[in-house]
């Protein structure tokens, strides 16, 4: 007897995008459930520290300015229709979040205050000290509790299922607590499962960020887009790669090299430390590569900000630096270096979160929606601005939720046989049944992460990427040989690690394919063998379709330009 569940809309992932999507669909009166591999408040949205951007017109800001700076930040690869939506709808969403209970920082007059963030001339980043993501995540979960939306906590999705017409019609998953599989039938699935940071080692991302959603969608036939655009955050801690928020620089911190120079003067004379992330990361990496670093790092200097600013506005990183780097920001500069942080690319969606094109310009997967880091609308293009990711989750989570509710309303029940979960169940059984001295998933993951961080990082070139490509193929070939000592069904984290590694290898395959294909330098994708941006040839997106051969099928889509023609990008 197979257990099964049925909803109009099923949301995968309970971070900010997932919960916002679920709440919105719920408000529209359709039946909704969330499925997540961790409890909602454990989601990685927690890690967003600095804030959320919005141009509030009653504060003298203009959404057009925010949109333009996002377009420029994206190195003109972002789709301008989507960016316009993002910037225009941001203000109302900030107010909605405030009404839900987010304790945004206030000015003296009791209204919401802002701070500056990178790549933007105006202070339009709303924030809660330096734990904005956490403060928002917990509030959205409060709303989920109030709305009594069912949450399947600690369930692991293994594949999307389709009906006879090839529409996405739900998913196969097992409960981590007991290993039991179930079929989730849904007229629409919203993928909101976050990023893929663990493809790299080190990364700022949590251990759960394993690209599950991207791989599930990719395997089911939806295209991934612009996967070569991997953001390295300029300020991460050595060792495990924990994030040190851009808000530190937003509040006025300096970046120094071993000679004590504010080196950003040479790379971005106007915006200095607050140039866009790709620019700052390249600068910091160049300083390190050219011998002006200190043990592989440069320095983030907060001392002149003073005790009060550090304690009140940067309290979390103050604590973090003390705990994890043994540095008191009030007293000494902190060694930091660029580290993998965010995937700009993801499952291709339109501005309503749909992973298919009603007009048929590109082939997608009906019934599948996506939002947040796992999706690629594309808002962030070649480089995401700080504090635009939280905004992305809130605006496009809402739009996906809204559109999915509309989509399912007149859709008859889809037919999926119970047998849809059989092959996944067999796969897990086979994993458990394998005995002997096979390789461990953790060891393979480390190889993958190290390779990616070496060859597909801040600076890239063809030979290195070909090595990475070969290595990933090799790892894919070794994947079926993984063995797990734990033969139990309760919280078998070995099984999960193996399945996640499979997802990550697929993601890595697309990152490398995209990066090898794009023979230019744009945004975070900087090729030392193709130094310039080539708008004539490359002002287009790369769509990657799963083939199962290890080499994706590639198609292109033109970038949507509304009002901002590509210009030289100077900060």
């Amino acid at each position, binding site marked *: 007897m197979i257990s099964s569940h049925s909803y109009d809309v099923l949301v995968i992932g309970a971070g900010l995008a997932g919960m916002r999507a679920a709440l919105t669909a719920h408000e529209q009166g359709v039946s909704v459930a969330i499925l997540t591999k*961790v*409890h909602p*408040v*454990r*989601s*990685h949205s*927690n*890690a967003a520290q600095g804030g959320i951007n919005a141009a509030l017109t*009653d504060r003298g800001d203009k959404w057009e300015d925010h949109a333009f700076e996002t377009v420029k930040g994206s190195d003109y690869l972002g789709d301008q229709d989507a960016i316009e939506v993002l910037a225009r709808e941001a203000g109302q969403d*900030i*107010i909605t979040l*405030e*009404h*839900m*209970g987010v*304790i*945004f*920082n*206030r000015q*003296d*007059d*009791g*209204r*919401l*205050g802002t701070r500056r963030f990178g790549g933007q001339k105006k202070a339009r980043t709303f924030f*809660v000290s330096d*734990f904005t993501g*956490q*403060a928002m995540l*917990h*509030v959205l979960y*409060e*709303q989920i*509790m*109030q709305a009594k939306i069912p949450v399947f906590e600690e369930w692991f999705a293994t594949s999307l299922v389709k009906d006879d017409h090839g529409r996405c019609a739900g998913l196969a998953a097992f409960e981590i*607590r007991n290993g039991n599989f179930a079929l989730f039938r849904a007229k629409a699935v919203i993928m909101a499962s976050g990023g893929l940071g663990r493809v790299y080692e080190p990364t700022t991302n*949590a*251990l*759960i960020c394993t690209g599950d959603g991207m791989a599930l969608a990719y395997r089911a036939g939806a295209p991934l887009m612009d996967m070569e655009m991997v953001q390295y955050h300029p300020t991460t801690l050595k060792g*495990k790669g*924990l994030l040190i928020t851009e808000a530190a620089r937003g509040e006025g911190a300096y970046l120094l090299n071993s000679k004590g120079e504010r080196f950003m003067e040479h790379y971005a004379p106007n915006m200095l430390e607050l140039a866009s992330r790709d620019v700052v990361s390249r600068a910091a990496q160049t300083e390190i590569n050219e011998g002006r670093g200190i043990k592989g790092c440069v320095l983030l200097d907060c001392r002149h900000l003073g005790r009060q600013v550090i304690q*009140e506005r940067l*309290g*979390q990183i103050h604590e*973090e630096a003390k*705990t*994890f780097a043994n540095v008191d920001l009030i007293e000494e500069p902190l060694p930091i270096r660029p580290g993998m942080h965010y995937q700009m690319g993801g499952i291709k969606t339109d501005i309503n979160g749909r992973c298919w094109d009603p007009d048929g310009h590109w082939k997608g997967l009906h019934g599948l929606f996506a939002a947040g880091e796992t999706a690629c609308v594309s808002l962030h293009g070649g480089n995401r601005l700080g504090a635009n990711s939280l905004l992305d989750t809130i605006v496009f989570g809402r739009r996906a939720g809204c559109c999915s509710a509309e989509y399912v309303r007149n859709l008859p029940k889809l037919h999926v046989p119970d047998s849809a979960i059989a092959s996944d169940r067999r796969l897990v059984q086979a994993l458990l049944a394998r005995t002997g001295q096979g390789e*461990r998933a*953790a060891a393979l993951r480390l190889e993958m992460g190290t390779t990616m961080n070496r060859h597909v990082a801040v600076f890239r070139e063809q030979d290195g990427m070909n090595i990475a490509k070969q290595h990933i193929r090799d790892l894919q070939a070794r994947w079926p040989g993984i063995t*797990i*000592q*734990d033969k*139990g*069904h*309760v*919280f*078998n*984290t*070995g099984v999960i*690690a193996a399945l996640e590694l499979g997802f990550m290898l697929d993601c890595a395959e697309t990152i490398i394919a995209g990066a090898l294909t794009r023979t230019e330098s744009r945004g975070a994708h900087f090729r030392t063998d193709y130094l310039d941006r080539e708008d004539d040839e490359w002002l287009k997106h790369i769509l990657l379709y799963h083939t199962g051969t290890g080499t994706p099928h590639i198609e292109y889509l033109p970038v949507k330009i509304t009002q901002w023609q590509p210009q030289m990008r100077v900060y």
Partner: protein
Amino acid sequence: MQTTLRVRRFNPEHDQPSSYFQDYDLEVNPADSVLDGLIKVRETIDDSLALRCSCRGAICGSCGMRINGHAALACKTKMISVASEGETIQIEPMKNMPVIKDLITDMASFWSKIRQIQPWLQPQGPPPTTEYTAPPQAMQHLNRVMSCIMCGVCVSDCTVLEVDSQFIGPAALAKAYRFVADPRDAATRQRLENLNTPGGMWDCTRCMECIQACPKGVGPMDRIMSLRTKGMAAKIPATCGSRHAEVFTDIIKHKGILDEPMLAVRTFGLKHVGRLFEMIPMVFQSILKGKVPLSGPLHKPLTSIRHIQRLFKRARKKS
């Protein structure tokens, strides 16, 4: 450095499940966290070791567990802070909740208690067209309690929960305070009344364990005390808990020293006279051990009582 992780294991799939300790010898970097050590065990020695973990940076709240007897986040606890070269670190699942497997606990009751306080903002009427205006200090004040990551560490080390599973617990009370102290919330009185019941805010014994354990500086017990103060200020119906606080203060004010029998009599009063009778066996035992303090007129005020009363006056002026 060389260390041994002594982990309390439990596998519910064994024929006769029972918990036991298993030792893992490791070579670690002293600056590594206990979580790093556990991950190393899982990835290189024994992949059946079950634990929850995610962010590695003390923000997701997954890796609460007991380390050398006290609950903490494994990711925030450095090896060197809990063991020296060659020493053993004892690692067990959190207390006051059932264990599912190894270091993984069932947090269902934790969350049901959180839901009990109706943890969402309940403002008055429809919202304004723009944001609510609110005093910046009041919102800044909420930062600390909003830093709570729901890791369960305070609940694990709560000494009241150890003997009374009905107690709502430090995490839910801190969460309740987050709303009671929010100028935008309009359900303050209702919230305080809901907490003014058995198992609620008066059941904390002020042992401070939660303050010490909390990895985020939320200070749950301090929040509980603030809730009590707010409850009394809002004149919610008196309970044994609030009367205990009032009578305690009153006795000290008049005598400078605690008159314990009087405290009990006045706290329970006629309404809860049954509770007084429940104490009779204890009174007899105390008499046998010569430990019954004097009371009423036989219990003299301190000679320095004027000094104490001056302190009271000064404290009142300050508040």
